[in-house]
């Protein structure tokens, strides 16, 4: 199994939630609860379990549980197959729960490239992050 390396693009959202990790964990791992906030699904909390997330828009995501550590970490692949490479996506979603004084710190990360982009980069894409970092410096620099 190949998983995106640290050089891939990602979306990270962090929130402090006033409930204990155990409660968040139930909402993250029980299918009828997942359906209420995310999508219809046949999720099961077992590494290697393959499942689908079915969006109200008709799209179906192919997923596989990659890592699970009760009340702490849940990670699954989040792939969208499409004949049109512009819409195909391979990514990994990871939820990390950290107990805090007031409840739980939730971190959600989705990391990945579209497959065609990964190919386009070939061996050169390791330099991509550095490129963007540098570019950001340039863009942030006052004229």
């Amino acid at each position: 199994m190949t998983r995106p390396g640290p050089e891939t693009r990602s979306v990270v959202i962090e929130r402090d939630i006033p409930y204990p990790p155990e409660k968040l964990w139930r909402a993250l791992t029980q299918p009828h609860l997942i359906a209420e906030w995310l999508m219809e699904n046949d999720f099961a909390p077992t590494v290697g379990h393959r499942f689908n997330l079915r969006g109200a828009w008709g799209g179906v995501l192919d997923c596989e549980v990659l890592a699970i550590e009760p009340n702490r970490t849940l990670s699954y692949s989040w792939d969208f197959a499409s004949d049109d490479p512009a819409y195909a996506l391979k990514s990994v979603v990871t939820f990390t729960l950290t107990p805090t004084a007031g409840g739980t710190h939730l971190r959600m990360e989705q990391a990945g490239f579209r497959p065609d982009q990964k190919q386009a980069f070939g061996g050169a894409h390791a330099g991509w992050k550095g490129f963007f970092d540098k570019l950001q410096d340039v863009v942030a620099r006052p004229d």
Partner: protein
Amino acid sequence: MSTAHDALFRTLADPTRRAIFERLCRDGEQTVGALTAFAGVSQPAVSKHLGVLKQAGFVRDRQEGRNTHYSARLDALGPLSDWTRQMTGFWETRLDRFEDLLKRMDQ
């Protein structure tokens, strides 16, 4: 997502081309001669890369006497941030629902 992304990524997939573009971003406007000295490839090769970059909207050129000056167009990178922005919007909405659900759950 669109084929516009593919064109942008393809254009920057070539390491020499990317190095030329980075150089223009960092150091501002340059002549083909200056870029050739830096890139370590022949002037025709640099000109060809600049042609591809120009066609993809990454650089603009300006004629001055016998020299053509090239500069970077940073706005060309705008579409590349779309994916991140779209997914961030998606997850913010879903996590709002997640928190609403937690309020409704027992315990």
